[in-house]
């Protein structure tokens, strides 16, 4: 009779793994790929990625994929193709339709040797990539040596969030008013969101410190939404992306032999959230948590931090005493203190002088005594 206890009410929902959405951010920085061309040319990487995407789509019937190129001057959709022939800009977050079925139908040449959904994804990706590369002018390349990973990441995140809303059970009222479902997607639906998402960044560029703020914001957004960011670092090295995978619980792999890309992808990046629960996944290991300074993009141990926007600077000599990032007044000259190791000593001294009125000390009365003056 114990079996009547309704504790197994949820069993039906849990027996199949939830569908998973994989957003791939492909770094298409021409500078870096030119550098890599001897070991792993871009076309080899794309074909490996396509097989990987097919494997992902095959792993679950409702699995979805989105591919975004992070180029030198813009972030562009590779799949799904945005509806209408609007220029695809990193700023367009509008109605990009999920099912590119209708759009892709006419252009696809039917190939009896290929599973149709695979063929549709492949055609779209190749077409859009070609378009992106054709659009790239020399001026774009010469203006910057790096890639717009921040924009691509936020595109991926917004797409994921939209797909999550679309995938969760809808009723008629929310269909009429999408905003209301957006509003309570945070609160009521989180318990049974059926879509699990992750982001994979295939990165080849090194220096990303100039996008510290957008990337960090994206990382925090991903952390909040519990979206793991996986990093496949084919070349270069950035502290930022290591931190991204560490903070969101993603996988970090820096292949020793980029030629074997496909095996790395299949083994380390294919398992989705359900499979990862029972597997040991590679991670970054010792993560370098140091931040890059915003003025010279040096990785610093100890720096100066703007109190408004939390930007980090390696030296106190700011022009006009204005923060380089947010432009607020920031006088660092006054803050120059001896080496940080000495701070403890200094505190003690202060205590003696101020009579323990430091508001941070638990024993002191916070209201009494003046706030300790700066200087």
């Amino acid at each position: 009779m114990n079996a009547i206890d309704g504790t197994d009410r949820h069993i039906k929902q849990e027996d199949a793994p939830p569908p998973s959405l994989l957003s791939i951010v492909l770094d298409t920085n021409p500078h870096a790929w030119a550098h890599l061309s001897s070991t792993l040319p871009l076309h080899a990487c794309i074909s490996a990625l396509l097989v990987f995407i097919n494997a992902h789509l095959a792993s679950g019937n409702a699995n979805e994929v989105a591919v975004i190129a992070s180029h030198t001057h813009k972030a562009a959709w590779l799949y799904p193709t945005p509806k209408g022939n609007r220029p695809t800009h990193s700023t367009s977050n509008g109605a990009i339709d999920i099912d590119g079925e209708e759009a892709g139908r006419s252009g696809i040449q039917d190939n009896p040797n290929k599973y149709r959904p695979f063929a549709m994804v492949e055609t779209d990706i190749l077409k859009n990539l070609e378009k992106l590369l054709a659009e790239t002018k020399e001026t774009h390349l010469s203006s910057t040596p790096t890639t717009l990973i921040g924009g691509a990441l936020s595109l991926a995140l917004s797409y994921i969030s939209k797909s999550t809303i679309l995938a969760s059970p809808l009723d008629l009222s929310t269909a009429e008013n999408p905003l209301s479902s957006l509003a309570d997607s945070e609160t009521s639906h989180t318990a049974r969101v059926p879509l699990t998402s992750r982001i994979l960044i295939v990165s080849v560029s090194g220096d990303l410190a100039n996008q510290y703020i957008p990337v960090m914001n994206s990382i925090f957004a991903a952390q909040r939404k519990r979206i793991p960011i996986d990093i496949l670092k084919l070349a270069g090295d950035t502290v930022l992306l290591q931190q991204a995978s560490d903070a969101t619980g993603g996988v970090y792999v820096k292949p020793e032999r980029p030629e074997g890309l496909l095996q790395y992808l299949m083994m380390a990046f294919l398992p989705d959230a359900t499979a990862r629960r029972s597997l040991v996944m590679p991670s970054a290991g010792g993560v370098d948590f140091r931040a890059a300074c915003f003025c010279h993009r040096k990785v610093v141990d100890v720096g100066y931090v703007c109190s408004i926007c939390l930007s980090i600077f390696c030296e106190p000599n700011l022009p006009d005493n204005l923060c380089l990032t947010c432009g607020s007044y920031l006088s660092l000259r006054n803050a120059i203190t001896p080496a940080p190791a000495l701070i403890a000593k200094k505190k003690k001294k202060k205590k003696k002088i101020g009579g323990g009125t430091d508001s941070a000390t638990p024993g002191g009365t916070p209201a009494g005594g003046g706030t300790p003056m700066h200087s």
Partner: protein
Amino acid sequence: MSSSSQALEYLEQQPLKTHTKLYEQPSTVLAIFRCMLPHLAKTLVMAMLYMTGPFPADDLDAWFRADGKKDKGKALTVLDRLHIMTTAVAVAVTGARTTTYGLAPRFATSLREALTGGGSHRSFGVPASTTGAERVTVHFLEQYATKQWENILFYMVGSTVGLAGGGEGVGGEVGEGTKALLKMGEFIHIAGRNVRITKKGFEFVLRDTNAQVWSLLIVYLQNAPALGMSETDVLSFLFLLGSLSIGQDYTTSTLSPTQLQMLEDLSAFGIVYRPSSTSPSFYPTRLAVTLTSDSGSLQQRSTTTTTTPKETRGSATEKGFIIIETNYRLYAYTNSLLSIAILSLFTKLTTRFPNLVSGKLTRDSISRAVKLGISSAQIISYLQAHAHPQMMRNTTILPPTVMDQIRLWEYEGERVETTSGYVMKEFESEKEYRDLVEYAESLGVLVWRSDARRCFFVDQIDQIGTYLQRKKK
């Protein structure tokens, strides 16, 4: 039981020879990979697919977390039974034995071909070049499939609840072949002109559409040899159908005679549509393309069909329409006779309006259903699968009180549950017993154990048998 597990069970019983033959077709391999394998098994297969050498068992163990051992065992069992994975034992010079795993070569090649789209197997269906006005719309296919399938269901249910002949187009004629098939599968019992639904038939009716299709097709498969068809051919054609896309027509010229014969039967079920029986092309319907999707596709289907302009009358099975309150009152927004007939199997229906029937779940109505052979789990899963979108928003779709009460009503009648299997007893030592019982537990086949009497009960014995043999050596 979900639809894919049904097919998996059938497939597992097939011998190695059938498997090897099946794995020659990339579309079949892809379909088996997509819908049959457990999630972890998919991960394993993909990890090994492009590996250059065999995969040492120690490395595999290291890859899994300690708490994932059970799932690993299950995944390996399925891969082993389907002959997808091969195990090799190599003995080193030092005498140390190392076990390595590898994929069956045929399977690996086909799966690689399916993923890359290479080769010239043409196994994903050759599209016909029909153009323009002759083409059939997706909407039409949708209607056609629903009509054919509901006809079959109504044929089974209608006579039992006394609604037969009252159909407004629903109770259409069902083909003789289909009737024979339903009889062979023991879904119905025909005595003269009187058709009675059996216990198995109830199970069938209450499942979701996808599972229904599979159960009917499995009966079809089992009877294929008697009709002079090769089972392998039939199976691979079914998997091929699952990988086609709706709205596209495919040519029949590349099909084998067996498959052509199948097309006729399948169009009677509504799984494929042919403009005429001699037409050189056929269209797969929604029933066909979801063959290799999970039952979860039911909900997905309702979101995809919103693109069609108008919901058809008979589409009630595709969209949730049932609301149940905590006071056991049931409201069903439907006018489909089939749905009403099914509901009336376990509900005391009181009122019918043009678009709504209302009634109540009572002790009498449930126990009557139980007597007919319907289990509480089936009722609950039917109600869940067809719950109104408004209900879908709740954390447990049905009110917990109602679910528990339905179970309690059922348990009033039957208090014993049976599982068929094997009892293992008379072990020589405690250690041997422990070892085996833990192995059985890790496989997930252990049903019951008694440490004091040193015996336990399993529902499947093949794996344990091979384990014992290996140990003896």
